[in-house]
Every structure is written in structure tokens, then in C-alpha cells.
């Protein structure tokens, strides 16, 4: 027998094959695990963006003080933060309702989260418009390129999340809490919370730190 392998055979009592449908493995667990892995790749994307930010921030000095002040409007960003956090909180309530199996609870939470997400988007795009109007654009120099890219890339996630919420509302309405709907709701929570976490990084490293550059 193989030296490092363990079990000795016990004639009669050793189970060799698993009767029963093993395909019925833990679906929810597998799906959410995979989504965590996906989130990890997204985290790596953000990490690379932040690394680029760290490098290009050395050239922030190419911008005049007034431009920097216009870009790093911490108060505006603070309002955006509140909107996004409130949205995440609302979605958190939806998840509490999901535990209780309350369809209406999930629906209300999701709708509120969706609306607040759109508010966040509106504020961000307003901000962009204001800056573009002043001629402050990503094409100006490397530092502004990365700042805008980070913010817009995050906003794209919020758009995706918003579409996802709409889809979930429809699927919940049609199917109720089937396993497909439930794992998607759970994954959406992971996704949505993650965007808030990333926003914290953007707020701290871009807006607040940008103020001191």
C-alpha cells in the first residue's frame, strides 16, 4: 500500500461510491464563493488603479492650485458619500427582510437603495459636468487622467449595480425567492457593499489626500 496514504480497507464496510445525486451540492455556497472570487479580481483592478494614482500623483504639481481645489471638492464628495452609504444601508435592510422571507421588505429596501444610488450618480455626473465646463478634463495631464478614471470607473459599477437591482426586482416579482433569486440578491449585497468600501478609498486617497497635495 502507499506509505503516506491512510485508510486500510475494511471489507464490507468501506464505502466506495456515493449513491444519491451528488450534483445537489451546496448551490448557494458555490455561487457566492465564486462571486467572492470575482470581487477579488475587481479589487485587484482597483488596486492597480490606486497604484497608478500613487505613481501619477507625483505629477499633481502640473495643475494649478485653483484646478486642484476645483477637483477636490471634499464637501461635494462628502454629500456623495452620504448618498452612497444610505443606499448601502437600505440594501442592508432589504437583506434583513430577505432573512425573514418578506418579499415586500426586500422590494422596498431595493427600491430605496436604487433611488439613492441614482442620486449618487446624479451628483457625480453633476460634478463631472462642472469640471468639464471649466476645462478641467482627463486629457489635461496624467494626474487628472487617473483621478477622473478612478471616479468614472467607480460610477460605472454603480450603473451596473442599478441595472442589477432592476433585474432583481423583476425576477423577484416573477419567481419569488427561488435559489437563483436568493443567491443573486446575496451577491448583489456583496457587490454593493464593495462599491461603498471602494468609495471610502477614493474619498480618503483621492479627495482628502488630493486636498493636501
Amino acid at each position, binding site marked *: *500500500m*502507499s*506509505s*503516506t496514504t491512510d485508510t486500510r480497507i475494511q471489507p464490507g464496510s468501506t464505502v466506495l461510491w456515493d449513491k444519491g445525486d451528488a450534483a445537489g451540492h451546496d448551490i448557494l455556497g458555490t455561487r457566492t464563493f465564486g462571486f467572492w472570487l470575482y470581487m477579488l479580481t475587481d479589487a485587484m483592478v482597483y488596486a492597480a488603479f490606486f497604484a497608478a494614482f500613487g505613481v501619477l500623483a507625483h505629477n499633481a504639481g502640473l495643475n494649478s492650485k485653483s484646478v486642484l481645489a476645483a477637483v477636490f471638492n471634499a464637501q461635494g464628495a462628502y454629500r456623495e458619500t452620504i448618498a452612497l452609504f444610505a443606499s448601502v444601508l437600505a440594501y442592508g435592510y432589504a437583506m434583513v427582510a430577505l432573512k425573514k422571507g418578506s418579499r415586500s421588505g426586500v422590494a422596498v429596501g431595493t427600491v430605496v437603495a436604487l433611488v439613492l444610488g441614482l442620486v449618487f450618480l446624479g451628483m457625480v455626473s453633476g460634478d463631472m459636468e462642472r469640471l468639464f465646463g471649466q476645462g478641467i478634463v482627463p486629457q489635461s495631464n496624467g494626474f487628472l487622467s487617473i483621478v477622473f478614471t478612478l471616479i468614472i470607473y467607480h460610477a460605472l459599477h454603480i450603473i451596473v449595480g442599478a441595472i442589477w437591482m432592476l433585474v432583481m426586482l423583476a425576477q423577484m416579482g416573477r419567481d419569488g425567492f427561488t435559489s437563483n433569486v436568493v443567491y443573486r440578491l446575496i451577491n448583489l449585497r456583496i457587490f454593493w457593499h464593495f462599491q461603498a468600501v471602494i468609495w471610502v478609498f477614493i474619498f480618503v486617497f483621492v479627495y482628502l489626500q488630493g486636498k493636501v497635495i
Partner: protein
Amino acid sequence: MSKRGIKGAIKALCAPLLLMLNGCSKSGLYLLEPEGTISRVTHHYFNLDVGIMLLIIIPTALLSVWAMWRYRKGGGGSYRPDWSHSWFIEAVVWGIPLITVGVLSYLSVKAIYKVNPYNPGALAHQEAAAGKPLEVDVIVTDWRWLFIYPGQRIASVNHLVLPVGVPVHFRLTSTSVVNDFIIPQLVGMIDVIPGMRTKQTLEASKTGHYVGFSADYSGAGLSWMNFETQTVTKAKFAQWVKKTQAAPHNMTDAAFNLFAKPYISIDHRPMVFGHVQSGLFDYVVHEVMSGKVWPTPTAMTENMVKYMNKQQANVKAGDY
């Protein structure tokens, strides 16, 4: 097939062996024939590094051949199908690479400081003895080398002249893309980066002619971007400087803007400038940093031959 063809074919078939023997006789293997202080130090470490590794790799190769032969099916080796662990062997197989890598790392770090392009340890004591080093500013365009001797206020294109026994300090920058400066027998590679300044240091020990290259890919003209490096005695060098200073062309910032237009050096036209505007190097670095580019026309890469004809016409018209 002609007789020569057959002979050639036979030669080609046995070639790897011949080439290896040829390799041992060291003809034309620039990296193994160092003629500068820095390259000699590199070569010394190369020998150490390769020697130590061969000490491990050759026995390993022999061991594996032996194991395959001794334990081939039907051979005389004992058969122990379950044998899969031995603390002793594990310790050895981790230990040997560990120790080797330790030694090599030590040597590597030491070598890095010895040949550090910015401040090579290998030249530290010579520097003091040899007195003032020679300064050379190198500007790479697409696809030519401009060597500026700021102390002498002269410049030379695609032709580098250096005195023997004097440390040479290079500052390097590029107008367009990244290049890589190397003179295999004198010194290793250093990147030449647009909008930045890198440095290199060398000291030639013999008079002679050497080849220099650009090693990093820079576009259509890369293959022709080699430059001749000539090392001469100090006296000869002084003569050369004098002669060059008498040359008529003048390299100013404005002239440089024309010069930096893409040009493929197929004709290897050497050129000298008897006078160079001071601060040209810094001017170029600054221009590129603020976004100046000398773009490559699509035609140049996509249809080089046509472009060459145009270039030839422009040269005649005195456009470069």
C-alpha cells in the same frame, strides 16, 4: 545541389557542436571579451555565477540520467513502489538550492553595486586617480545617436570617440521612445527614456573600435541604430576635439528640432557639430516633458522603402 551546397549542408547539420567549439575559442563573443573596467568586472561575476551553477546543474543532470538508467524497467535497480519520503533527502533537496541561492544572491548584490551605472563601485578608486572624468550627453532620436561633449561644446552623430583610461560619465535621454544604450565590450545596457535622464559610466582600457547598439525596440530604424565607438589615447582625443571644434555645423535648439525628425540611418552618415548650444540636453528633456513629440508618420513604418526615397531626397535638399 552544388558541391559547396552539400558541404554547407553537412556543416550546418553538425553545427551546434562546431558552434560550441567555436564558442570556446571566443571569437566575436563580445560579452566574453571585455575591454573596459566595468565590463571586466561584469565578466568576472559572470564566470563565478556560471561556475557555481554548473557545479549544481551538471551533477543534477547526471543524477537524473543515472536514475533513469539504473531504475529502467527490466534493469537491475531495486523496486520500492511505496517509497516516497525521506527526511534526509528532503533536507538535502531543500538545502542545496537554498545554499546555492544564498551564495549567488550575495554575489549578485555585490556585483550590482560594483557596476551600478550611476556610481560604479568598480571605478571608485580609479575616479580619484584619473582626475576629471569626461562628460558625454547622449540624445537619442528616431533613429540616430547624438553624442554631445558639453565640456568641449562639440557633438557627433552615430560616432562616439572616447579617451582610454578616463572615466566617462554619460547622461542619456530620448526624444521619442525608450531606447537602450549598450557597447557590449565596454559597458552593459541602460535605458534611454524620453522626458527623463538616466546615467551610465564606463572606462575603456584599450584603444580600438567597438560596436554600440540600441537594444530596445524603437521602430523601423532600430536595426540600423548601431554606432561606432572608437577609443583613442588621451593625446589623440585632444586632437580629435580640436579638429571637430573647427567643423562648420552648429547645433542649436532650433537645429535640433529639425535634426530630431525621424531619420533612418541606413547610410550611417557620420556628422559632427563644431559648436553646440549649451544646455541642449536639458532643453530636450524639458521639451519632451512638456509634451513635445516628433511623431512617426504612418508611412514611415508601414512603407519604409518609399519613405527612404523621400528621406534621401530631403537629405539632398539639405533638410536634415
